[in-house]
């Protein structure tokens, strides 16, 4: 009798366990490698001379930007989202490669992300990680993240020390510089148990000064608040492209 009872309790327990058992989620990861360039040349800090669309030459001493809220679209148009931000910094080799985890297995046709920091994360108080104000990408005097910093030197600049200083940010209309980027993969991107997928995305820094609003360094060599920030953001919003996947 007791034996029977124990047996049936065990059976029920096994059944419950079996019912609540869900197979491990079928997820993989995606590595994104950012490659910063200036036109057709690789971006090298300080030493290489580049030219803007007006033929004015310049060097780059700093180039960094926030990317975040990555999302991938599959063939059916369904989107999966990966929260969080990354600071891509030319000075820090490790920062150029980021990994998105927990991406469901499948085939994806495009990738999107926010260039900058969205308005909620601009107004949520003290933050850590990539958004820690110690990263030097936060405006303390007028709350908000700096989305992109480019600094350098140009003989055409009228600033002290011939400096170029472009600190672009601002999340409120009419000076909203947040830009949503949407890029198509060259081939459908497969995430499955076999391959740890890698995508190479190019960022062409020359776009800051060309495009809709060509920048003449003798007229504009410094942007550190809302003045002209939108012009630069409009320019650089198409600086990304997928070069390999």
């Amino acid at each position, binding site marked *: 009798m007791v034996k029977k009872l124990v047996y049936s309790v065990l059976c029920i327990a096994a059944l419950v366990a079996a019912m609540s058992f869900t197979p491990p989620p079928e997820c993989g990861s995606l590595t994104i490698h950012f490659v910063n360039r200036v036109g057709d040349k690789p971006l090298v800090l300080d030493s290489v001379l580049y030219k803007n669309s007006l033929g004015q030459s310049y060097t780059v001493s700093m180039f960094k930007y926030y990317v975040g809220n990555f999302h991938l679209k599959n063939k059916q148009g369904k989107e999966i989202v990966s929260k969080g931000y990354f600071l891509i910094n030319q000075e820090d080799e490790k920062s150029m490669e980021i990994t998105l985890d927990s991406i469901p297995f499948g085939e994806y046709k495009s990738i999107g992300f926010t260039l900058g920091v969205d308005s909620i994360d601009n107004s949520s108080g003290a933050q850590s990680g990539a958004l820690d104000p110690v990263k030097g990408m936060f405006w303390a005097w007028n709350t908000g993240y700096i989305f992109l910093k480019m600094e350098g030197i140009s003989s055409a600049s009228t600033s002290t020390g011939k400096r170029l200083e472009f600190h672009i940010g601002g999340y409120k209309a009419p*000076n909203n510089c947040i830009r949503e980027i949407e890029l198509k993969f060259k081939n459908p991107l497969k995430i499955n148990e076999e391959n740890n997928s890698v995508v190479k995305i190019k960022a062409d820094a020359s776009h800051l000064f060309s495009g809709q609003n060509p920048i003449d360094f003798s007229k504009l060599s410094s942007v550190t608040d809302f003045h002209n920030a939108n012009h630069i953001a409009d320019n650089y919003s198409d600086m990304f492209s997928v070069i390999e996947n």
Partner: protein
Amino acid sequence: MKSKRIYFFVFPLLVLILLAGFITDNSYFTITPKDVEFKIPQGFPKPFYDFKNNTPTPAGFVLGRKLFYDPILSKDSSISCGFCHMRIAGFAHIDHALSHGINGLIGKRNVPPLENLAWGNSFMWDGRINHLEVQPLAPITSPIEMNETIAHIIEKLQRNKDYAAMFKTAFNDSVVNSKNILKALAQFTGLMISSNSRYDKYMRGEDTLSAAELNGLQLFRDNCDQCHKEPLFTDNTFRNTGLPMDTNLKDSGVAAINGDMKDYMKFKVPTLRNVEMTYPYMHDGRFRTLKQVMDHYTKKFTAESHADPILIKGIQLTELDKADIIAFLKTLTDQTFLHDRRFADPSGHY
């Protein structure tokens, strides 16, 4: 003989122990869990600051208080938050029209009081800071206030044994980082609540006001309440009160922040709690007395003055009315808050 000798030893020892106990009696500065409970005062709306994401604890509050009063937050260890924000003035600064910072450098603005900050949805006279937690980064990094970097402060605090221990007890992750520094400061400043003035007691039926004060309250509700909305005495909006721009300071208020001329000379409607103590007045401290403020409001403002429509329509007050309004404004002085031991400087510097 033997027992006498024992007394000879025991007595001074007892005195010493008593003395030591007296000197180290810091119950005045002791913070209990009850001291850091956040309660919405009767009649107050829901606050903007969400204490659920930063539940005040005695350890967190005491750390915030130490940081607030510690000049370690400035580059040359000369200036603390409490240097500019004086407790006896509702954490405004008495006397100076404009703030004085590091190396005696003079700022552009009058130091505002710190009270009921949890109900603010933007900070500074022009609202350029959007969250209580990130507010301290502004004075810390300002070259004319504390002229320090957050990275260097973290380094200094990590080297300091007291602070390292305090961060350990105050936060689960134990680390000295910007987030914990800012959360601790917000626990301290967020709990600075003024809700026990004679006006509050009158509203709760615990006290009476004089005939003049009651007349002042009525006049206030007729003329001022649209902007200085009860019970916080601000509606958290930005308005142009028809003040001409100071030609030296060239401070155009919100317009200087967003470049929108519609916001020319607009400044935050300040709370009027403890206003008796927060002189001088206005964003640049241009008025020394409440009477001068009253005289300003009864001026004629033309349509071209950019002043708020309420002021262009005009506020009419007799001299007696003004005196009564001032009498009412003084009922907003909150002795409980001004003398609250929780907010006193534990080191007794200022």
